[in-house]
């Protein structure tokens, strides 16, 4: 029994010695706890609490706040209970995305992320891949919206499909509200032409962001060329000029686009003029030789009905 008591007492003493030795050698290195909101809005003011678990006051702790590509360094000093607070003012954490807070104390480094969400849409750029498209539904243009908040952060419009719409007014008065396909920072849509030639007005509006753009709907290529001749009969005395006039329209009867080239063939000669409001005029001296001349005008694949010019040395009837 005595041996048993001695063994138990010895074990207890040994245990106490080991525990006290361990307590003396392994002074726990204090760790840091960073307390911050999980999510803030871009540009909002917020506070970071730094808690030194050892509870020591008066300790300097350098902190780095990485927000997008900006970095801010600050050293805080712990107060009572080992707690320090860093008040980040409004307008400082402006870049959206996941930001990082890094605090260091001795060998300990603690990192914490905080999500910064973009604010409401405040700026928008509307781009188009073409400034003009053929009317009548024959072509289309891609419209792209770059939408940002007040700090220039791209917006994620996913989930806001019903709000992010393009209001389109076509030349014939038709209106369409076109939904956009959203990516982060960008929304896009195809717009098919509708109706005849004229201006297509496109507007985008979301929160405080507005943008507008115009696309020109152009007529098609010449389908019908009408040639008129003035005068149809002319004396070969060299005093008069011959005036050739064409009116060119597309398949829907609208004048072709300004500047369309029209060719004129008179016998073996050729001349060219460009259109304004669908009309091209060419004034030339008439042939010197008397006779009946065949005139044709053409633009692209379309050609006019031939008209005949009479050149005479007598009187025109």
């Amino acid at each position, binding site marked *: 029994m005595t041996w048993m008591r001695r063994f138990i007492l010895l074990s207890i003493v040994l245990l106490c010695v080991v525990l006290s030795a361990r307590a003396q050698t392994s002074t726990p290195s204090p760790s840091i706890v960073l307390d911050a909101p999980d999510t803030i809005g871009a540009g909002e003011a917020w506070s970071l609490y730094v808690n030194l678990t050892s509870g020591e006051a008066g300790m300097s702790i*350098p902190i*780095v706040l*990485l927000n*997008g*590509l*900006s*970095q801010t*360094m600050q050293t805080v000093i712990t107060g009572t209970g080992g707690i320090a607070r860093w008040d980040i003012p409004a307008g400082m954490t*402006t*870049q*959206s*995305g*996941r*930001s*990082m807070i*890094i605090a260091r104390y001795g060998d300990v480094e603690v*990192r*914490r*992320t905080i999500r910064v969400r*973009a604010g409401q849409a405040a*700026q928008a*750029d509307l*781009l188009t*891949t*073409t400034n003009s498209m053929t009317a009548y539904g024959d072509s289309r243009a*891609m419209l*792209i919206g*770059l939408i*940002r908040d007040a*700090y*220039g*952060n*791209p917006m994620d419009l996913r989930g806001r499909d019903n709000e992010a719409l393009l209001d389109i007014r076509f030349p014939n008065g038709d209106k369409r509200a076109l939904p956009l*396909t959203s*990516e*982060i*920072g*960008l929304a*896009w849509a195809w717009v098919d032409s509708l109706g005849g030639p004229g201006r297509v007005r496109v507007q985008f509006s979301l929160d405080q962001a507005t943008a507008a753009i115009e696309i020109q709907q152009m007529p098609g290529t010449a389908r019908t060329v009408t040639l008129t001749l003035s005068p149809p009969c002319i004396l070969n005395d060299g005093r008069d000029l011959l005036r050739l006039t064409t009116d060119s329209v597309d398949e829907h009867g609208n004048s072709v686009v300004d500047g369309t080239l029209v060719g004129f063939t008179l016998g073996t000669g050729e001349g060219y003029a460009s259109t304004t409001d669908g009309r091209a005029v060419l004034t030339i001296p008439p042939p010197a030789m008397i006779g009946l001349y065949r005139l044709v005008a053409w633009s692209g694949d379309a050609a006019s009905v031939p008209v005949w010019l009479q050149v005479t040395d007598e009187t025109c009837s």
Partner: protein
Amino acid sequence: MSKNRAKFILFITALLIGIPASLIGFLMLNSFIAAFNSGADPASIFRGHRLILPTEDQAQWMSTDAAGTQPNQNTLENLISAYWFGWEALARAYQTGDSANLPTYWAGAALDQVQAAGPSSSMSFVHNRHRLYLRFLSEDMTVAVMDDVGFHFQYSSIQQGVEFTLSANATLVLTLDNGFWRIREYTIDLMR
């Protein structure tokens, strides 16, 4: 004074004025050209732009399956080159404290944000391992959206005694302005 002596004096005077004037003119022309070469927009006609592609370790396309339209090889090369040099311009701005080169590769809101971040010569900035996923390319190949997944970067400052390495994901909008791709918008998610 004889006529020959007068001619000789005139010749010597012209020589004395002409040589320094030519020298000064040459030096001024030289510094004028040097100013264009060093200070001009690298994309300008005075400097020209050579297409330099980053190595695979620096930046690499992982996916080019884009919505909108499919890119051609030329567009992909120009995009990745401009993107890489955008980060290089930022690194140079940190190295030298001179951010004059940033507008060559950054534009619009992204340029404002980068300039507001205030790269200073007190820090060095190193970046690599850009893994790029093209998400959108406009029909006329002038607007692109891409993700950069898990790229690494490192800030260090000897003066302030800090150095930290981070990895991040980024979503970027690039636009082709005057024949040159520029980063116009970005969102960066830093990872622990």
